[in-house]
């Protein structure tokens, strides 16, 4: 393995779920890399495929009858092609995962310590006493006070933040090289959110693991991620370094995400602009650019042409899937940055309004089938 080989390389990943209503294209040709010790943020609305792509990395969509194609190369091994037994040796060992709701993700009937001990002993041939000592050590590592006593508590005796710390402790049991954090802060109070993010960063520094952090909240990845991938309808629509993405976002969807979060530095008259409509059905996706029904800048041909993720002219590491001209996009973003609404921005660059109305309640998308795991 060469030094340049990333820890995780996802290549053209497709994940489909056949259902009674049709095939759900949950992940549609996604590619990304994560280097050792680095953090990738995957951002998108619910139903954008961000969780499914990560669960597939661990092979956890297999039990759901998912059809998976593409490659997920981890340390030179293609995880898609591995047997269930080979994958099990990697799960919780080389790659660990934490989930959104720490209360429902911990087994309510087992003590926190028992669950930690189990996590240690699946992959390490150690005695129960040694595993228990390790469990106490792990709880201390994630900042749970009095870990020697709390190890015998049940999950319901922990607060939300402590539960997520316990989940993180469990994920770290075998010092994974990659930690996938699926909305790790969504179910927590704002003050606790910051603590958990800081904890993840500190642990990354101490243990040197790579992190994939999945969130719908750009604020979460702004502080923690080195790179960001923005997903929409099962695809990555923009990928850049965090710095670059916040300084010069190129995709109208990313603009929408950025303009819909309040900023402390912006002017007071600046209004929050929600993205109209709702995410498309992943069974019957819109033709052309999947975002065009909700895009304020969409043009007639955007309903026919499917954009590809391509490098931005002046920065090959910044990729975007948008049919608008680069120069036009930059002018639009400049207008939006000045606090103008999408309509004002469109008018000042001389772009005609979209012909079909931006998605209204009338063309609400079909239900996205729940992919329970």
């Amino acid at each position, binding site marked *: 393995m060469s030094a340049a080989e990333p820890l995780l390389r996802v290549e053209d990943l497709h994940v489909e779920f056949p259902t009674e209503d049709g095939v759900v294209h949950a992940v549609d040709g996604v590619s990304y890399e994560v280097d050792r010790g680095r953090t990738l943020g995957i951002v998108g609305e619910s139903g954008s495929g961000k969780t499914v792509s990560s669960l597939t990395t661990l092979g956890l969509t297999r039990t759901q009858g998912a059809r998976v194609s593409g490659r997920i190369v981890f340390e030179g091994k293609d995880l898609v092609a591995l047997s269930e037994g080979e994958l099990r040796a990697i799960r919780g060992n080389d790659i660990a995962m934490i989930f959104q709701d720490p209360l429902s*993700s911990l087994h*309510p009937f087992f003590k926190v310590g028992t669950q930690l001990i189990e996590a240690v002993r699946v992959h390490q041939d150690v005695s129960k006493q040694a595993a228990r000592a390790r469990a106490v050590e792990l709880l201390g590592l994630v900042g749970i006070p009095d870990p020697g006593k709390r190890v015998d508590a049940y999950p319901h005796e922990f607060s939300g933040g402590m539960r997520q710390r316990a989940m993180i402790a469990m994920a770290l049991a075998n010092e994974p090289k990659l930690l996938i954090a699926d909305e790790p802060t969504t179910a927590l109070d704002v003050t606790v959110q910051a603590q958990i993010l800081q904890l993840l960063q500190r642990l990354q520094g101490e243990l040197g693991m790579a992190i994939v952090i999945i969130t719908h909240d750009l604020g979460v990845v702004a502080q923690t991620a080195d790179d960001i991938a923005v997903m929409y309808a099962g695809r990555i629509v923009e990928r850049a370094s965090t710095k670059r993405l916040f300084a010069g976002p190129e995709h109208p969807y990313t603009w929408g995400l950025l303009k819909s979060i309040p900023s402390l530095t912006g002017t007071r008259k600046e209004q929050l602009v929600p993205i109209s409509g709702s995410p498309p059905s992943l069974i019957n996706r819109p033709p052309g650019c999947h975002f065009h029904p909700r895009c304020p800048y969409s043009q007639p041909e955007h309903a026919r042409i499917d954009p590809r993720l391509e490098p931005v002219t002046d920065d090959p590491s910044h990729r975007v899937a948008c049919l608008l001209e680069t120069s036009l996009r930059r002018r639009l973003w400049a207008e939006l940055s000045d606090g103008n609404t999408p309509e004002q921005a469109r008018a000042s660059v001389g772009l005609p309004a979209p012909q079909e109305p931006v998605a209204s309640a009338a063309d609400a998308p079909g239900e996205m089938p729940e992919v*329970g795991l």
Partner: protein
Amino acid sequence: MTRYIIRRLLWGLLLLVIVSALTFVLFRILPTADPAKLRAGRLQSPKIIAEIRHDLGLDKSLPEQFWVYMKGIFLHFNLGYSYYSNAPVKELIFNRLPATLSLVLGGAVIWFVAGLGVGIISARRAGSKLDRASMGTALVLVSAPEYWLGLLMLFFFASDIGKVHVFPGAGSYAGLTAEPSKWFTSLIMPWLVVAAGTAAIYARLIRSSLLETMGEDYIRTARAKGLSERRVVLRHGLRSAINPIVTVLGLDIAILLGGTVLVETVFDIPGIGRLNYIAITHSDYPIIQGTVLAASLFVVVANVVIDIVYAFLDPRVRYS
């Protein structure tokens, strides 16, 4: 917890008094036959019947009769005497209890183990042919009446009248301490009959409970840890799925202990159900009262036991 249990038991006691009162009134308002007349036999004259009625205390007013009965229970733990055989009801019930216990507990082991096994396999292969076949069989077994299944078994497998002489037939029951091997062989068919319908219900219960549990987030966590699917299902899944089943199991055992009338009658097992059946045909009020009371007691006690077991099974449950 202790205070909670004491409170529950006191409420249970009140319930038992109410049940006794209801049975008392019910069988006297709607008598199966006049017990005094039945007891008088062939030499019936109004005088003899009146004497018998007086001896049995039936000439007193209903509230008075009930008061005497309750006093006997509370002060002397005396359930009265059979009109028919004069034997103490308490003794009759205690003598019959081992047979019913043997039948019900043995049956419970079979239906629980069978239900668990079939339920787990069905849940793991939900939608498969095996799943459909076992759930179909379960439906048939649930629908089959016990006495019919019992007669069918006797017809085919009883060593005396069966087509194939396999198991000892009706009336072959022997006590566990007296003849252990005969106790076991004579109960095989009754056990299977008692267990059949319930096992089918349990298989369906466990299947649906496990299917629901396997969709929980913590099952995903267990898989993400790298546990084998076997361990995920049997340790993490079943641990949660079994909880609602325990409640049902406790109640089912308690209700059956009150008398498996049909099975005990078909196989002629001298249990509480059979005792009750004979008592009703003889209008033997004290025995009816006693067996109904015992049956209610089992249910009350089972409910408290279930609550206690539940607190152990689910650490989130706390009683106050």
